[in-house]
Structures are given as structure tokens and as C-alpha cells.
């Protein structure tokens, strides 16, 4: 699904965000990207949805050389993947329904298709009853569920999540992670960048740890810290 080969990313200000990263992610995978702030998690995600272009190396998402895309093809790529963020990035003057429908409008979807797909998606994230509300009238968890609905309404093969629970309390965090897991079991590949240790340790999925822009560890069914469960201390 995703193939990142020898990718380096240096920002124009000289900061080296990623250093020769190589990573393969299989279709249907659920993967955590962990590491302390500033280690390149967000940068890696940005490369996948073409918000940044690698200085070196190549990136293939679902058979497409993402690093080579320009203009309208970038828009086309983004319609085939969903992205969610810590700050939700919802349009505040649009209702829940409109926010989700908007992602379909930009694809040129037919109104009938939109009217069929949006309620279905809102149902999936459990917001059907709040579809006429504005983001400011929702809790953080509900806002993030709206963002998830928007991200998956076009049935993407890949869902990228950048600190999806960073602004949420533990209860909402658990709900969001459950939702992501459900989306994953339907066949969507999910990549979650997080530094929420309890989330990672509870779910026991593949964990890739970045340190200083390099891949430090890569474990199937891993923990936030290499080989350690929650409550244990990393020594040395």
C-alpha cells in the first residue's frame, strides 16, 4: 500500500526532518508512528498526502509516485486518502453534514450520491443525530468524529491520522481509537502518529518509532517503548 524508499526531507530553513527513511506498509495494516515531538512523525505523514515533497528518495502510495505529483493530480491523490488532525480542521461556518458533504462536493460527486453517502457515514461515526449542528456546538470527540467522517466519506484506501487524540480526554480517546479500528477492519489501511502511550500499548498493533528523523524501531504488535508494556520504565 505504502512504500517509502530512502526518503530524506530537509525543510527550506535547513531543518532536517527525515533522514534516509525506508518503510513498507501493507494493505489493511494498522500502524502507529511514535516518537517524541519533532522527530518527524508529522513530516512523514505530510509526505504521504503531498503536503511536503521529499528532498531525496521516492514514495509510492497505492501504486502512485506521490513525490512526482503536481497540480490537479495532488487534489486527485487527496480524494483517495483521508487525513485527520489534532485540531480537527473543520470548517466552522458549516454544519456537520455540510463539512462531510464538502469532501464529496470537491470530487464532483452527484448530489444523489452525496445524499446517500453522507448519512451513512455519519451513522458510522455515531453523529447522525447531530448532523445539523456546527462544530462550535460539539465536544472535541464529536468534532474529531466529524473530521473522521469527512476523511472516510469517499471510501479511501488509506487513512492518515496526525495526533488524532491529542486534544481529547481518555474517554473520547478510547472512542476515537475504537472508531479507527472499525474503519481498519473494513479494509482501510490506517496510519496513526501519536505520542499517547496508553493508546499504543492497549491496541498492540505495529509500532514504528522515529528518533531524530530516522526509524529507530519497527515492531509487529509493539508497545510505545520497545519491548515494554505500560507502567514499565525504560532504563539506560
Amino acid at each position, binding site marked *: 500500500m505504502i512504500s517509502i524508499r530512502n526518503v530524506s526531507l530537509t525543510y527550506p530553513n535547513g531543518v532536517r526532518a527525515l533522514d534516509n527513511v525506508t518503510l513498507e506498509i501493507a494493505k489493511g495494516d494498522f500502524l502507529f508512528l511514535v516518537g517524541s515531538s519533532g522527530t518527524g512523525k508529522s513530516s512523514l505523514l505530510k509526505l504521504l*498526502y*503531498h*503536503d511536503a515533497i521529499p528532498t531525496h528518495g521516492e514514495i509510492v502510495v497505492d501504486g502512485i509516485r506521490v513525490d512526482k505529483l*503536481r*497540480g*490537479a493530480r*495532488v*487534489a*486527485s*491523490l*487527496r*480524494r483517495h486518502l483521508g*487525513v485527520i488532525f489534532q485540531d480537527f*480542521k*473543520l*470548517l466552522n*461556518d458549516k454544519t456537520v453534514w455540510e463539512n462531510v458533504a*464538502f*469532501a464529496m*462536493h*470537491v*470530487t*464532483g460527486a*452527484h*448530489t*444523489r450520491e*452525496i*445524499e446517500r453517502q453522507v448519512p451513512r457515514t455519519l451513522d458510522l461515526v455515531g453523529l447522525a443525530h447531530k448532523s445539523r449542528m456546527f462544530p462550535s456546538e460539539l465536544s472535541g470527540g464529536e468534532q474529531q468524529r466529524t473530521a473522521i467522517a*469527512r476523511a472516510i466519506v*469517499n471510501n479511501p484506501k488509506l487513512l492518515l491520522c496526525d495526533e488524532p487524540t491529542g486534544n481529547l480526554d481518555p474517554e473520547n480517546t478510547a472512542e476515537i481509537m475504537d472508531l479507527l479500528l472499525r474503519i481498519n477492519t473494513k479494509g482501510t489501511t490506517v496510519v496513526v502518529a501519536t505520542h499517547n502511550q496508553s493508546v499504543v500499548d492497549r491496541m498492540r498493533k505495529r509500532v514504528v518509532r522515529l528518533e531524530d528523523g530516522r526509524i529507530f524501531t519497527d515492531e509487529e504488535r509493539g508497545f510505545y517503548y520497545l519491548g515494554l508494556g505500560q507502567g514499565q520504565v525504560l532504563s539506560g
Partner: protein
Amino acid sequence: MDWGKVKFFLGEVGRNFTRNAGMQATAIGTVAVTVVLLGLFLFVRLTLAGVGDRLLKQIEISVYFHTSATTAQENHLRDALRADRRVASFTFVPKAEGLKELRRQTQGSIDVSILTQNPLPDKFRVRVTDPSEVAAVADSLRGQPGVANVVYGKTIVGRLLQLGVVLRRISIVLIVALLFVASIIISNTIRLTVFARRREIAIMQLVGATATYVRMPFVCEGVLHGLIGSLVALAILGIGKAALWSKLALALPWLELNSAHVALAPIALQLLAVGIAIGALSSWFSIGRYLRT
């Protein structure tokens, strides 16, 4: 036709337009002021050109015959004038008529009655359609048989024509400058509205909107600015004309101000088109810098 799409698009334009009323008013006001200035300028230019044209149209070529010229020669010239497309009109002034004219013009300051015989030759008075061809027509008449002399206001024609050319050039430069300044001001105003919505633009692009898709509502908004601004300007110009036209005509009678001389409808349409174009182009370019990729 998917009416849902049309409704959505119009909804987007309408929503953007009704929000941020102060900014919209600024953009519309800028267009209005520009179009008013442009309209005044076009009006002055057209009026001046009209005055110049009328002066030039009054220019006559006098074709004097030798006193020995025959009627056949005079008829030959009459035929030539009739056939010449550059000639708008001509009149034959026989010498007797010429003497009466002279009497009328001198009004007794010279006693014409002392003349024992009429010293004046027969002449043609010729007007041309296009003032720039006065010289050419005069030259072609000069060589005709029986013609003694061809006279027209050579200096005044030359100067008026020159003035016309210079005025036209200056006004083109001024119009371009005015449009340029207006575009910059409007772009900056619209840039502010775009800046206020940069987060929204980023989100639109994030969910896969193409640059064109993001641009269209903004450009439509610019068209609306242009349309409303121009209409406001036309209303101001219309009211101004109604209030001042007759006073101006009285104060400057030699301008021969007359609505018939200035075709206002085409000017109004031009101004409308210019206003809309300014609005649309300014929006198009203002949003460019917030569109990534």
C-alpha cells in the same frame, strides 16, 4: 444537469459574500470610485473629441476659378466633386452671390458700391467627410482645369489633427494607469478577504479540491464586486449628469453639450465590462498566493 451542484456553488458564493460585509463594501466602493473616475474621464475625452470634430467639420475648402474659366470647366469640377467619396458636400457660389456675401460680411465698413464691375471669381465651397483628408482633397482640386486657387485653413486643420492625436495618446496612457492603480487597490482589498479565509482554503485543498475549484467562488465574488461597484458608479454618474448637465451646457455653451453628441449607452456597457473584469482578475490573482502546489 445536477441542480444540487449549482445550488451548492451559489450557496458558497452567497455565503462568502454576505459574510464580512465591511470588506465587501470596501471592495465594491473601490470598484465604484474607479469606474466613476473612468466614466468622467471617458466623458471629458469624448466631449473634447466631439468639439474638435465639429470644428474640423466646419473647415471649408474654397476653390476659386480663373475669371476666364468656362462653364464647361466648372461643370467638369462639379462632376468630379460629386464622384469624390471624400467630399461630404459642396456648394457653387457664382460671382454675383460672392459679391452679396462680401457685402454682408463687410457690413458697410467697405463701400462695395464703388466697384464698377464684380472682381470676384466663381467658386466652390467644399466640405469633406474626414477632416484628415482635407489636405489631400485640396491638392487634388488644385490641378483641375480652370482652377486658379484652392484655400483652406491649413494651419488650424494641422493643429487640430495633431491635438487630436496627442489627446488620444495621453488618454490611453491615463486610462491604462487608472486601471492599473485600481487593480492594485482592489487586489489588496480582496487579498484581505482571501487572507481571512486562508484556513478554509487550506482545508479545501486538503480534502482534494483543485486550485480551480477553490478559485471559482472567489472569482465569482470578484465578478459580483465588479458588477455591483459598476452599477453603483453608473448610478452616481447618471445622477451627476441629471443634476449638472444642463448647468454645464449653460456655463460652457461653446461645448455644444448635447446628449446626442455623446453616445452614453456604449460607455455604460464599457464601464460595466471594465468593472467586472477588474473584479474577476483581481480575485484570480489575489487568491493565487494562497493556493499551494
